[in-house]
Protein backbone atom coordinates (compact mmCIF):
# COMPACT_ATOMS: atom_id res chain seq x y z
CA UNK A 1 0.00 0.00 0.00
CA UNK A 2 1.15 3.52 -0.79
CA UNK A 3 -0.26 6.50 1.04
CA UNK A 4 0.22 10.11 0.03
CA UNK A 5 -0.68 12.76 2.62
CA UNK A 6 -0.99 16.50 1.99
CA UNK A 7 1.59 16.56 -0.77
CA UNK A 8 2.76 19.91 -2.13
CA UNK A 9 5.21 20.44 -4.95
CA UNK A 10 6.17 23.59 -6.82
CA UNK A 11 8.69 24.54 -9.48
CA UNK A 12 10.21 28.04 -9.41
CA UNK A 13 7.38 29.34 -7.25
CA UNK A 14 4.64 27.80 -9.41
CA UNK A 15 2.52 25.28 -7.49
CA UNK A 16 2.17 22.07 -9.48
CA UNK A 17 0.70 19.80 -6.80
CA UNK A 18 -1.54 21.30 -4.15
CA UNK A 19 -2.47 19.28 -1.07
CA UNK A 20 -2.83 15.84 -2.67
CA UNK A 21 -3.88 13.02 -0.35
CA UNK A 22 -4.66 9.54 -1.62
CA UNK A 23 -4.19 5.86 -0.80
CA UNK A 24 -3.18 3.36 -3.48
CA UNK A 25 -4.20 -0.17 -2.66
CA UNK A 26 -2.30 -3.40 -3.36
CA UNK A 27 -3.57 -5.88 -5.95
CA UNK A 28 -5.35 -3.09 -7.78
CA UNK A 29 -4.54 -0.95 -10.78
CA UNK A 30 -4.71 2.56 -9.42
CA UNK A 31 -5.06 5.24 -12.09
CA UNK A 32 -4.09 8.88 -11.98
CA UNK A 33 -5.94 10.70 -14.72
CA UNK A 34 -6.09 14.28 -15.86
CA UNK A 35 -5.34 16.59 -18.74
CA UNK A 36 -1.83 17.09 -20.07
CA UNK A 37 -0.03 19.47 -17.71
CA UNK A 38 -2.34 18.69 -14.78
CA UNK A 39 0.53 17.34 -12.67
CA UNK A 40 0.10 13.56 -13.15
CA UNK A 41 3.73 12.87 -14.04
CA UNK A 42 5.01 15.17 -11.30
CA UNK A 43 2.83 13.31 -8.79
CA UNK A 44 4.11 9.93 -9.97
CA UNK A 45 7.74 11.08 -9.98
CA UNK A 46 7.28 12.62 -6.54
CA UNK A 47 5.92 9.32 -5.20
CA UNK A 48 8.92 7.38 -6.50
CA UNK A 49 11.33 10.05 -5.25
CA UNK A 50 12.56 11.41 -8.57
CA UNK A 51 11.27 14.82 -7.46
CA UNK A 52 11.89 16.18 -3.96
CA UNK A 53 8.56 17.29 -2.52
CA UNK A 54 8.03 20.64 -0.74
CA UNK A 55 5.73 19.32 1.96
CA UNK A 56 3.71 16.24 2.81
CA UNK A 57 4.24 12.55 3.44
CA UNK A 58 4.69 9.55 1.19
CA UNK A 59 4.29 6.20 2.94
CA UNK A 60 5.29 2.84 1.52
CA UNK A 61 3.59 0.45 3.95
CA UNK A 62 4.87 1.71 7.32
CA UNK A 63 7.91 3.56 6.00
CA UNK A 64 7.90 7.31 5.49
CA UNK A 65 9.69 7.26 2.13
CA UNK A 66 10.35 10.97 1.69
CA UNK A 67 12.21 11.16 5.01
CA UNK A 68 14.46 8.17 4.37
CA UNK A 69 18.14 8.64 3.55
CA UNK A 70 19.70 7.44 0.27
CA UNK A 71 20.27 3.91 1.60
CA UNK A 72 16.75 3.61 2.98
CA UNK A 73 15.23 4.81 -0.28
CA UNK A 74 17.45 2.41 -2.17
CA UNK A 75 16.04 -0.56 -0.24
CA UNK A 76 12.48 0.43 -1.14
CA UNK A 77 13.45 1.18 -4.73
CA UNK A 78 14.65 -2.38 -5.15
CA UNK A 79 10.98 -3.29 -4.73
CA UNK A 80 9.84 -0.83 -7.38
CA UNK A 81 9.44 -1.31 -11.09
CA UNK A 82 8.68 1.54 -13.41
CA UNK A 83 7.48 1.78 -16.98
CA UNK A 84 8.40 5.13 -18.49
CA UNK A 85 6.54 7.01 -21.20
CA UNK A 86 9.37 6.46 -23.67
CA UNK A 87 10.15 2.97 -22.29
CA UNK A 88 13.65 4.12 -21.15
CA UNK A 89 15.36 0.93 -22.27
CA UNK A 90 19.15 1.15 -22.25
CA UNK A 91 20.16 1.76 -25.87
CA UNK A 92 23.52 0.06 -25.60
CA UNK A 93 22.09 -3.20 -24.19
CA UNK A 94 20.14 -5.93 -25.96
CA UNK A 95 16.63 -6.90 -24.91
CA UNK A 96 18.02 -9.76 -22.83
CA UNK A 97 20.66 -7.56 -21.19
CA UNK A 98 18.05 -4.90 -20.42
CA UNK A 99 15.81 -7.37 -18.60
CA UNK A 100 18.79 -8.99 -16.88
CA UNK A 101 20.20 -5.64 -15.72
CA UNK A 102 18.39 -5.47 -12.32
CA UNK A 103 19.31 -9.14 -11.70
CA UNK A 104 22.98 -8.42 -12.49
CA UNK A 105 22.95 -5.41 -10.20
CA UNK A 106 21.15 -6.78 -7.18
CA UNK A 107 21.29 -10.57 -7.11
CA UNK A 108 24.00 -13.19 -6.76
CA UNK A 109 22.20 -15.63 -9.03
CA UNK A 110 24.11 -17.82 -11.45
CA UNK A 111 23.99 -16.85 -15.11
CA UNK A 112 21.72 -19.84 -15.87
CA UNK A 113 19.22 -18.77 -13.22
CA UNK A 114 19.26 -15.20 -14.50
CA UNK A 115 18.74 -16.36 -18.09
CA UNK A 116 15.78 -18.50 -16.97
CA UNK A 117 14.25 -15.53 -15.18
CA UNK A 118 14.82 -13.25 -18.18
CA UNK A 119 13.17 -15.77 -20.52
CA UNK A 120 10.28 -16.19 -18.10
CA UNK A 121 9.69 -12.42 -17.93
CA UNK A 122 9.97 -12.03 -21.69
CA UNK A 123 7.56 -14.91 -22.29
CA UNK A 124 5.18 -13.37 -19.76
CA UNK A 125 4.97 -10.21 -21.87
CA UNK A 126 4.83 -12.23 -25.11
CA UNK A 127 8.24 -11.26 -26.43
CA UNK A 128 9.68 -14.22 -28.28
CA UNK A 129 12.91 -14.56 -30.30
CA UNK A 130 13.95 -10.98 -29.62
CA UNK A 131 16.57 -11.57 -26.93
CA UNK A 132 19.48 -10.41 -29.04
CA UNK A 133 17.78 -7.38 -30.57
CA UNK A 134 18.60 -3.82 -29.51
CA UNK A 135 15.84 -1.38 -28.45
CA UNK A 136 16.24 0.58 -31.69
CA UNK A 137 15.20 -2.54 -33.60
CA UNK A 138 11.89 -2.92 -31.73
CA UNK A 139 8.45 -1.45 -32.38
CA UNK A 140 6.89 0.93 -29.82
CA UNK A 141 4.63 -1.79 -28.40
CA UNK A 142 7.50 -4.27 -28.09
CA UNK A 143 9.63 -1.70 -26.28
CA UNK A 144 6.85 -1.12 -23.77
CA UNK A 145 6.53 -4.86 -23.21
CA UNK A 146 10.29 -5.28 -22.77
CA UNK A 147 10.18 -2.38 -20.30
CA UNK A 148 7.43 -4.19 -18.38
CA UNK A 149 9.54 -7.37 -18.41
CA UNK A 150 12.48 -5.40 -16.98
CA UNK A 151 10.22 -3.80 -14.38
CA UNK A 152 8.97 -7.17 -13.10
CA UNK A 153 12.27 -9.05 -13.29
CA UNK A 154 12.93 -8.56 -9.56
CA UNK A 155 9.33 -9.36 -8.55
CA UNK A 156 8.54 -5.82 -7.39
CA UNK A 157 5.86 -4.95 -4.87
CA UNK A 158 5.16 -1.64 -6.55
CA UNK A 159 4.70 -0.96 -10.26
CA UNK A 160 4.54 2.56 -11.67
CA UNK A 161 3.53 3.25 -15.26
CA UNK A 162 3.78 6.69 -16.82
CA UNK A 163 1.51 6.96 -19.86
CA UNK A 164 1.98 3.30 -20.86
CA UNK A 165 -0.20 3.72 -23.96
CA UNK A 166 1.23 6.90 -25.39
CA UNK A 167 2.11 6.52 -29.05
CA UNK A 168 0.46 3.10 -29.38
CA UNK A 169 -2.43 2.02 -31.59
CA UNK A 170 -5.71 1.16 -29.76
CA UNK A 171 -5.27 -2.62 -30.05
CA UNK A 172 -1.68 -2.63 -28.76
CA UNK A 173 -2.76 -0.17 -26.05
CA UNK A 174 -5.42 -2.61 -24.84
CA UNK A 175 -2.86 -5.43 -24.84
CA UNK A 176 -0.53 -3.35 -22.66
CA UNK A 177 -3.40 -2.42 -20.33
CA UNK A 178 -4.45 -6.05 -19.98
CA UNK A 179 -0.87 -7.08 -19.31
CA UNK A 180 -0.51 -4.49 -16.55
CA UNK A 181 -3.77 -5.61 -14.97
CA UNK A 182 -2.88 -9.31 -15.17
CA UNK A 183 0.58 -8.77 -13.70
CA UNK A 184 -0.84 -6.63 -10.90
CA UNK A 185 -3.24 -9.40 -9.89
CA UNK A 186 -0.71 -12.18 -10.38
CA UNK A 187 1.95 -10.63 -8.12
CA UNK A 188 -0.47 -8.67 -5.90
CA UNK A 189 1.43 -5.47 -6.64
CA UNK A 190 0.45 -1.93 -5.86
CA UNK A 191 0.24 -0.51 -9.35
CA UNK A 192 -0.12 3.15 -10.20
CA UNK A 193 -0.77 4.12 -13.80
CA UNK A 194 -0.69 7.65 -15.17
CA UNK A 195 -2.93 8.08 -18.17
CA UNK A 196 -5.24 10.39 -20.04
CA UNK A 197 -6.56 7.55 -22.19
CA UNK A 198 -10.24 6.91 -21.41
CA UNK A 199 -10.02 3.41 -22.94
CA UNK A 200 -7.50 2.53 -20.24
CA UNK A 201 -9.71 4.07 -17.59
CA UNK A 202 -12.69 1.94 -18.60
CA UNK A 203 -10.53 -1.16 -19.13
CA UNK A 204 -8.40 -1.31 -15.97
CA UNK A 205 -9.47 1.55 -13.68
CA UNK A 206 -10.14 -0.17 -10.36
CA UNK A 207 -9.31 2.96 -8.43
CA UNK A 208 -9.13 6.33 -10.12
CA UNK A 209 -7.76 9.67 -8.97
CA UNK A 210 -8.59 12.68 -11.12
CA UNK A 211 -6.42 15.74 -10.77
CA UNK A 212 -6.77 19.08 -12.46
CA UNK A 213 -4.25 21.92 -12.24
CA UNK A 214 -2.47 20.10 -9.43
CA UNK A 215 -5.57 19.71 -7.27
CA UNK A 216 -7.29 16.44 -6.46
CA UNK A 217 -10.81 16.80 -7.85
CA UNK A 218 -12.31 13.34 -7.69
CA UNK A 219 -11.64 9.80 -6.50
CA UNK A 220 -13.58 6.66 -7.35
CA UNK A 221 -13.70 3.67 -9.69
CA UNK A 222 -14.57 3.06 -13.34
CA UNK A 223 -18.22 2.37 -12.56
CA UNK A 224 -18.63 5.64 -10.70
CA UNK A 225 -16.75 7.81 -13.17
CA UNK A 226 -19.65 8.10 -15.65
CA UNK A 227 -22.05 9.34 -12.98
CA UNK A 228 -19.89 11.88 -11.25
CA UNK A 229 -21.01 15.37 -10.23
CA UNK A 230 -17.55 16.78 -10.77
CA UNK A 231 -17.81 19.19 -13.67
CA UNK A 232 -14.11 19.16 -14.51
CA UNK A 233 -14.11 15.36 -14.55
CA UNK A 234 -17.16 15.28 -16.82
CA UNK A 235 -15.50 17.74 -19.19
CA UNK A 236 -12.49 15.42 -19.27
CA UNK A 237 -14.39 12.12 -19.59
CA UNK A 238 -16.83 13.38 -22.19
CA UNK A 239 -14.33 15.46 -24.10
CA UNK A 240 -14.71 13.85 -27.51
CA UNK A 241 -17.81 14.30 -29.64
CA UNK A 242 -18.79 10.61 -29.62
CA UNK A 243 -18.80 10.52 -25.84
CA UNK A 244 -20.77 13.77 -25.74
CA UNK A 245 -23.40 12.35 -28.11
CA UNK A 246 -23.70 9.17 -26.03
CA UNK A 247 -24.11 11.21 -22.88
CA UNK A 248 -26.73 13.50 -24.41
CA UNK A 249 -28.65 10.55 -25.85
CA UNK A 250 -28.84 9.08 -22.33
Amino acid at each position, binding site marked *: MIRVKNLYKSFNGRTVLDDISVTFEPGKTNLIIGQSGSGKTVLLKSIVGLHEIDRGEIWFEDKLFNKLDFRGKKEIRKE*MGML*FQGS*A*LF*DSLTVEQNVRFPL*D*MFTDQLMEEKTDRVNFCLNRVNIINANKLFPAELSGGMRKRVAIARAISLNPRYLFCDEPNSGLDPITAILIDDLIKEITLEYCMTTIVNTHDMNSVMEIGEKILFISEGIKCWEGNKNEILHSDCEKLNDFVFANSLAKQLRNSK
Partner: protein
Amino acid sequence: MIRFLTLLGRYFLLLGKVFSIPENSTVYYKQTMREFVFLGINSIGIISIISFFMGAAITLQTAYNTENPIYPTYLIGLGCRDSIILEFSSTIAALILAGKVGSNIASEIGTMRVTEQIDALEIMGVNSASYLILPKLGATLLFNPFLTLISICVGILGGWIAGTQLGVITTEDFIYGIQYAFIPYYITYSLIKTVVFAFIITTVSAFQGYYVTGGSLEVGQASTKAVVYSSVLILCFNVILTQLLLS
Protein backbone atom coordinates in the same frame (compact mmCIF):
# COMPACT_ATOMS: atom_id res chain seq x y z
CA MET B 1 29.34 34.74 -9.51
CA ILE B 2 26.58 33.00 -7.56
CA ARG B 3 25.73 31.00 -10.68
CA PHE B 4 29.36 29.93 -11.03
CA LEU B 5 29.56 28.89 -7.37
CA THR B 6 26.28 26.98 -7.71
CA LEU B 7 27.67 25.12 -10.73
CA LEU B 8 30.91 24.41 -8.88
CA GLY B 9 28.95 23.10 -5.90
CA ARG B 10 26.85 20.84 -8.12
CA TYR B 11 30.02 19.58 -9.80
CA PHE B 12 31.58 18.59 -6.48
CA LEU B 13 28.31 17.05 -5.25
CA LEU B 14 28.23 14.98 -8.42
CA LEU B 15 31.83 13.89 -7.79
CA GLY B 16 30.76 12.85 -4.29
CA LYS B 17 28.08 10.62 -5.79
CA VAL B 18 30.50 9.24 -8.38
CA PHE B 19 33.06 8.14 -5.78
CA SER B 20 30.63 6.16 -3.63
CA ILE B 21 31.03 2.39 -3.20
CA PRO B 22 29.86 0.51 -6.33
CA GLU B 23 26.70 -1.59 -5.95
CA ASN B 24 28.15 -4.52 -7.84
CA SER B 25 31.86 -4.57 -8.64
CA THR B 26 31.48 -7.20 -11.38
CA VAL B 27 29.06 -5.01 -13.34
CA TYR B 28 31.33 -1.99 -12.86
CA TYR B 29 34.34 -4.00 -14.02
CA LYS B 30 32.51 -5.02 -17.20
CA GLN B 31 31.44 -1.44 -17.79
CA THR B 32 35.03 -0.25 -17.34
CA MET B 33 36.25 -2.81 -19.90
CA ARG B 34 33.59 -1.56 -22.32
CA GLU B 35 34.71 2.02 -21.79
CA PHE B 36 38.34 0.99 -22.36
CA VAL B 37 37.28 0.03 -25.87
CA PHE B 38 34.98 2.99 -26.57
CA LEU B 39 37.03 5.76 -25.01
CA GLY B 40 40.53 4.31 -25.16
CA ILE B 41 41.20 1.80 -27.91
CA ASN B 42 38.91 3.62 -30.35
CA SER B 43 41.01 6.77 -29.83
CA ILE B 44 44.33 5.16 -30.80
CA GLY B 45 43.72 5.77 -34.52
CA ILE B 46 43.04 9.51 -34.31
CA ILE B 47 45.83 10.07 -31.79
CA SER B 48 48.32 8.13 -33.97
CA ILE B 49 47.42 9.99 -37.17
CA ILE B 50 47.59 13.41 -35.54
CA SER B 51 50.79 12.58 -33.64
CA PHE B 52 52.49 11.32 -36.78
CA PHE B 53 51.82 14.49 -38.76
CA MET B 54 52.48 16.80 -35.83
CA GLY B 55 55.83 15.08 -35.25
CA ALA B 56 56.64 15.51 -38.93
CA ALA B 57 55.65 19.19 -38.91
CA ILE B 58 57.60 19.90 -35.69
CA THR B 59 60.72 18.32 -37.19
CA LEU B 60 60.47 20.32 -40.40
CA GLN B 61 59.75 23.59 -38.57
CA THR B 62 62.69 23.01 -36.21
CA ALA B 63 64.89 22.26 -39.23
CA TYR B 64 63.90 25.46 -41.04
CA ASN B 65 64.39 27.55 -37.91
CA THR B 66 67.85 26.15 -37.19
CA GLU B 67 69.22 26.41 -40.72
CA ASN B 68 72.53 27.83 -39.55
CA PRO B 69 75.99 26.21 -39.51
CA ILE B 70 76.51 27.11 -35.85
CA TYR B 71 73.58 24.86 -34.81
CA PRO B 72 74.35 21.13 -34.90
CA THR B 73 71.71 19.23 -36.89
CA TYR B 74 71.00 16.81 -34.04
CA LEU B 75 69.17 19.72 -32.40
CA ILE B 76 66.33 18.97 -34.80
CA GLY B 77 65.82 15.55 -33.16
CA LEU B 78 66.17 17.07 -29.70
CA GLY B 79 63.65 19.80 -30.50
CA CYS B 80 61.22 17.27 -31.91
CA ARG B 81 61.55 15.01 -28.84
CA ASP B 82 61.12 17.77 -26.25
CA SER B 83 58.22 19.46 -28.05
CA ILE B 84 56.38 16.17 -28.35
CA ILE B 85 57.02 14.93 -24.81
CA LEU B 86 56.56 18.22 -22.98
CA GLU B 87 53.64 19.72 -24.80
CA PHE B 88 52.20 17.94 -27.75
CA SER B 89 51.51 14.40 -26.50
CA SER B 90 49.93 15.53 -23.26
CA THR B 91 48.30 18.90 -23.89
CA ILE B 92 47.48 18.93 -27.59
CA ALA B 93 46.41 15.29 -27.49
CA ALA B 94 44.21 16.13 -24.47
CA LEU B 95 42.56 18.93 -26.44
CA ILE B 96 41.89 16.49 -29.27
CA LEU B 97 40.48 13.97 -26.79
CA ALA B 98 38.33 16.69 -25.23
CA GLY B 99 36.72 17.00 -28.65
CA LYS B 100 36.35 13.30 -29.33
CA VAL B 101 35.87 11.69 -25.92
CA GLY B 102 34.35 14.71 -24.14
CA SER B 103 31.57 15.24 -26.66
CA ASN B 104 30.94 11.49 -26.72
CA ILE B 105 30.53 11.33 -22.93
CA ALA B 106 28.34 14.45 -22.72
CA SER B 107 26.04 13.37 -25.54
CA GLU B 108 25.75 9.77 -24.31
CA ILE B 109 24.88 10.74 -20.73
CA GLY B 110 22.77 13.69 -21.90
CA THR B 111 20.71 11.47 -24.18
CA MET B 112 20.24 9.00 -21.34
CA ARG B 113 18.98 11.87 -19.19
CA VAL B 114 16.43 13.22 -21.68
CA THR B 115 15.16 9.73 -22.57
CA GLU B 116 14.63 8.96 -18.86
CA GLN B 117 17.21 6.14 -18.83
CA ILE B 118 18.93 7.80 -15.86
CA ASP B 119 15.57 7.99 -14.06
CA ALA B 120 15.13 4.29 -14.79
CA LEU B 121 18.48 3.57 -13.13
CA GLU B 122 17.53 5.66 -10.09
CA ILE B 123 14.18 3.87 -9.76
CA MET B 124 15.98 0.53 -9.71
CA GLY B 125 18.04 1.82 -6.77
CA VAL B 126 21.22 2.19 -8.81
CA ASN B 127 23.51 5.14 -8.10
CA SER B 128 23.28 6.45 -11.66
CA ALA B 129 26.14 8.95 -11.32
CA SER B 130 28.54 6.31 -10.11
CA TYR B 131 27.36 3.63 -12.55
CA LEU B 132 27.65 5.93 -15.58
CA ILE B 133 30.67 8.05 -14.73
CA LEU B 134 33.02 5.95 -12.59
CA PRO B 135 33.77 3.32 -15.30
CA LYS B 136 34.44 6.09 -17.83
CA LEU B 137 36.70 7.85 -15.38
CA GLY B 138 38.56 4.65 -14.57
CA ALA B 139 39.01 3.86 -18.24
CA THR B 140 40.32 7.30 -19.20
CA LEU B 141 42.58 7.65 -16.15
CA LEU B 142 44.17 4.27 -16.88
CA PHE B 143 44.20 4.36 -20.66
CA ASN B 144 45.08 7.97 -21.52
CA PRO B 145 48.69 7.59 -20.24
CA PHE B 146 49.06 4.76 -22.78
CA LEU B 147 47.65 7.05 -25.45
CA THR B 148 50.26 9.62 -24.46
CA LEU B 149 53.06 7.06 -24.72
CA ILE B 150 51.75 5.94 -28.11
CA SER B 151 51.54 9.58 -29.17
CA ILE B 152 55.15 10.20 -28.11
CA CYS B 153 56.42 7.16 -30.04
CA VAL B 154 54.37 7.83 -33.17
CA GLY B 155 55.20 11.57 -33.08
CA ILE B 156 58.93 10.91 -32.94
CA LEU B 157 58.51 8.29 -35.67
CA GLY B 158 56.71 10.86 -37.83
CA GLY B 159 59.50 13.35 -37.21
CA TRP B 160 62.16 10.81 -38.15
CA ILE B 161 60.39 9.73 -41.35
CA ALA B 162 59.69 13.30 -42.47
CA GLY B 163 63.19 14.51 -41.55
CA THR B 164 65.06 11.72 -43.26
CA GLN B 165 62.79 11.38 -46.31
CA LEU B 166 62.86 15.12 -47.02
CA GLY B 167 66.62 15.26 -46.46
CA VAL B 168 66.71 17.73 -43.56
CA ILE B 169 68.49 15.35 -41.17
CA THR B 170 70.22 11.97 -41.26
CA THR B 171 68.99 9.01 -39.22
CA GLU B 172 72.18 9.05 -37.12
CA ASP B 173 71.80 12.73 -36.21
CA PHE B 174 68.09 12.37 -35.47
CA ILE B 175 68.66 9.38 -33.16
CA TYR B 176 71.59 11.17 -31.50
CA GLY B 177 69.31 14.20 -31.02
CA ILE B 178 66.47 12.30 -29.43
CA GLN B 179 68.92 10.65 -27.02
CA TYR B 180 70.90 13.82 -26.26
CA ALA B 181 70.48 15.26 -22.74
CA PHE B 182 67.35 13.20 -22.21
CA ILE B 183 65.63 13.84 -18.89
CA PRO B 184 63.37 10.89 -17.95
CA TYR B 185 61.37 13.14 -15.60
CA TYR B 186 59.87 14.79 -18.69
CA ILE B 187 57.97 11.57 -19.34
CA THR B 188 56.68 11.54 -15.75
CA TYR B 189 55.68 15.20 -16.12
CA SER B 190 53.82 14.41 -19.32
CA LEU B 191 52.00 11.44 -17.79
CA ILE B 192 50.99 13.43 -14.69
CA LYS B 193 49.50 16.09 -16.96
CA THR B 194 47.72 13.41 -18.97
CA VAL B 195 46.06 11.95 -15.86
CA VAL B 196 44.89 15.39 -14.68
CA PHE B 197 43.57 16.22 -18.16
CA ALA B 198 41.78 12.86 -18.38
CA PHE B 199 40.05 13.64 -15.08
CA ILE B 200 39.01 17.07 -16.36
CA ILE B 201 37.73 15.78 -19.70
CA THR B 202 35.69 12.95 -18.18
CA THR B 203 34.19 14.70 -15.17
CA VAL B 204 33.43 18.03 -16.86
CA SER B 205 31.82 16.32 -19.85
CA ALA B 206 29.87 13.91 -17.65
CA PHE B 207 28.70 16.84 -15.50
CA GLN B 208 27.42 18.66 -18.59
CA GLY B 209 25.56 15.56 -19.79
CA TYR B 210 24.21 14.50 -16.41
CA TYR B 211 22.35 17.73 -15.72
CA VAL B 212 20.87 18.27 -19.18
CA THR B 213 17.22 19.28 -19.21
CA GLY B 214 15.14 19.47 -22.35
CA GLY B 215 15.66 17.59 -25.59
CA SER B 216 18.09 16.95 -28.41
CA LEU B 217 18.93 20.64 -28.83
CA GLU B 218 20.05 20.86 -25.20
CA VAL B 219 22.06 17.65 -25.55
CA GLY B 220 23.93 19.23 -28.47
CA GLN B 221 24.53 22.38 -26.43
CA ALA B 222 25.80 20.32 -23.49
CA SER B 223 28.15 18.51 -25.82
CA THR B 224 29.57 21.80 -27.10
CA LYS B 225 29.90 23.17 -23.57
CA ALA B 226 31.69 19.99 -22.50
CA VAL B 227 34.34 20.48 -25.20
CA VAL B 228 34.74 24.23 -24.60
CA TYR B 229 34.94 24.04 -20.79
CA SER B 230 37.24 21.00 -20.86
CA SER B 231 39.57 22.72 -23.33
CA VAL B 232 39.76 25.93 -21.32
CA LEU B 233 40.39 24.00 -18.10
CA ILE B 234 43.07 21.90 -19.80
CA LEU B 235 44.89 25.04 -20.92
CA CYS B 236 44.62 26.61 -17.45
CA PHE B 237 45.83 23.48 -15.69
CA ASN B 238 48.63 23.12 -18.24
CA VAL B 239 50.08 26.40 -17.01
CA ILE B 240 49.53 25.54 -13.34
CA LEU B 241 51.05 22.04 -13.65
CA THR B 242 54.01 23.31 -15.68
CA GLN B 243 54.77 25.85 -12.98
CA LEU B 244 54.32 23.28 -10.23
CA LEU B 245 56.23 20.41 -11.85
CA LEU B 246 58.97 22.08 -13.89
CA SER B 247 59.92 25.20 -11.99
